[in-house]
């Protein structure tokens, strides 16, 4: 199978996962909150396509896509969302806090900008090991205004750390348009302040994203240090469940839907002959089935035992 078809499958998986999860929230089946990455699938898939198994990833509050693209198991993710014992964090973390260290996926983060220093530290450690590995740090346009961004990029630039700072500029931080929070045009243009390259790419184009990350990764592995990669995309969904999106117009959203990375990619693949409509439908069906199984797994799993609430805080007291 062509790798592009695999990318398409992953993007579809992410899209349908998020839609189903939003639905389950609306129905009250899942509690808490979640931040769908609808519209941003090409970033997650494009980045992961460029990485090796030895790499590390830190994610954000909007991390389901990153995790799925890195190989996260939809069943365990769904179970986590359901608050079940079989979930990635045994139900303790919920949407924002799940990870799988065996995949190098260090998890999402509830603190905007909170994972930027952590990824930087992973890079610091990797550099000393002189391995062929990088740390990849996802964060949003909004997060780029946190102090941790500055401190981290300065350290990474100073010490030539193998860290790829991947900014998903999805046009908003919650309700705040990028340019009501960012004092310059592009996040990528801030890389100059740290002495390493920054690029802006079309975040709705999986190949463009992949290419930029491949280059940055190679550079880092040659000991040349970090890169900042800004992926310009658009959050097609609300910020989190319940977001009425009063801060933007229907027209704006309609225009954005025309850039829907999944439709764009399907059209491209079909027009270039990599897929045909039957194949696409078949793929969609398979993904849907996978998600149904994931949901069933989550539904049938049991809740954690409340008596275990106090376990597992320290290594000496394992859950």
């Amino acid at each position: 199978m062509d790798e592009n078809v695999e990318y398409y499958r992953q993007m579809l998986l992410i899209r349908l996962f998020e839609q189903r999860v939003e639905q389950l929230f609306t129905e009250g089946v899942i509690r808490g909150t979640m931040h769908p990455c609808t519209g941003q699938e090409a970033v997650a898939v494009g980045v992961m396509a460029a990485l090796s198994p030895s790499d590390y990833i830190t994610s954000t509050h909007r991390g389901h896509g990153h995790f799925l693209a890195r190989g996260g198991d939809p069943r365990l993710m769904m179970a986590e969302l359901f608050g079940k014992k079989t979930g990635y964090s045994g139900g303790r973390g919920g949407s924002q806090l799940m990870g799988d260290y065996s995949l190098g996926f260090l998890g999402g983060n509830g603190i905007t900008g909170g994972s930027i220093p952590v990824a930087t530290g992973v890079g610091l450690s990797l550099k000393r090991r002189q391995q062929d590995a990088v740390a990849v740090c996802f964060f949003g346009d909004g997060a780029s205004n946190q102090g941790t961004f500055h401190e981290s990029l300065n350290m990474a630039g100073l010490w030539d750390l193998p860290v790829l700072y991947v900014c998903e500029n999805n046009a908003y931080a919650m309700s705040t348009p990028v340019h009501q929070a960012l004092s310059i045009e592009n996040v990528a243009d801030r890389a100059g302040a740290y002495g390493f390259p920054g690029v802006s790419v079309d975040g709705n184009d999986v190949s463009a994203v992949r290419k930029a990350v491949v280059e940055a990764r190679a550079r880092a592995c040659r000991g040349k240090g970090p890169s900042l990669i800004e992926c310009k995309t658009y959050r097609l969904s609300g910020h989190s469940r319940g977001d009425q999106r009063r801060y933007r117009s229907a027209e704006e959203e309609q225009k954005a839907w025309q850039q829907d990375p999944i439709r764009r990619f399907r059209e491209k693949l079909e027009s270039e002959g990599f897929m045909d409509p039957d194949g696409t439908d078949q793929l969609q069906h398979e993904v849907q089935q996978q998600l149904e199984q994931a949901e069933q797994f989550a539904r049938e799993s049991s809740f954690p035992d409340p008596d275990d609430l106090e376990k597992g805080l320290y290594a000496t007291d394992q859950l």
Partner: protein
Amino acid sequence: MRQISYSDAIREALTEELRRDEDVFLMGEDIGAYGGAFGVTRGLIDEFGAERVMDTPISEGTTAGAAIGAALEGRRPVVEFMFMDFIALAADQLLNQAAKLRYVFGEQASCPLVIRTPTGGGRCYGPTHSQSLEAWFVHVPGLKVIAPATPYDAKSLLKTAVRDPDPVLFLEHKMLYKQQGQVADDDEHDDCRGILPLGEARIAREGQDITIVAWSGMTREAEKAAEELEKSDVEAEVVDMRTLSPMDTETLLASVRKTGCVLIVQEAPRTGGVGGEISARISENIYEYLDAPVRRLASPDVPFPASPVLEERMIPDKNRIVEVAVEMLEEGI
């Protein structure tokens, strides 16, 4: 008096103070068009404009610091942090700048700053969106800490906080936002109508058998527990601390002197919480009035889990309060 919700009460306080004093303005993430994550500031930007209801970048540390600067220049900024969990990013500015200015620089350095932020669990928001960190700030001399439990107190104390010449932390519990209750009306002719002084606890319910001490979200559970206890002829007195710093030790002690028995209910993890301070103050001052040891009911010492079954076990509730109170009374007698 009108019945409105706790969040409406807060919005009313903000509205009235924004109208009353031109120097008052709001800063925070998504407080304008979005109206804040919990809708508290919804609509305010329409009346007061983006200059006085300012959306900020996601930069909690500098937002706090900028508010301090504006306050020193004579403004009265009211900052919203979206969740109290994020206040750690502004901890330095609150601890090392705001709290120390007047003590060090004297009367010239007035820092009339309010930080509003939602606290607490109950909504399955998980480890980084459920914390109640009041204990940190009660331990910072120079900051005042308010944690109201009713719409009336929320409105009245927020108005007081905005007018206060010193930095105030105003804690709003997420599970209270929809709570209904009466509030004081604004009065054109009486600027101080409904204003409450800081630092006075409230007897939420009178009783003589046991004192239950609570604040913020736990007050409601304590009141429900008291109702339940009444069925078994136990008259519990509920003391709502309201202001945690400065702390109204007098009201607290008066109640315990009467009942001889006290249970402190705290939502934050047990160790190092404000409950310990309250317990210590009672022991120090009226040890001889105690018929039973002071007890604390609190969340266990772990992060707030997201799963509903775990979160439910985590946070003290009416039933647990009743249970412990009964146990105490049985032992005490």
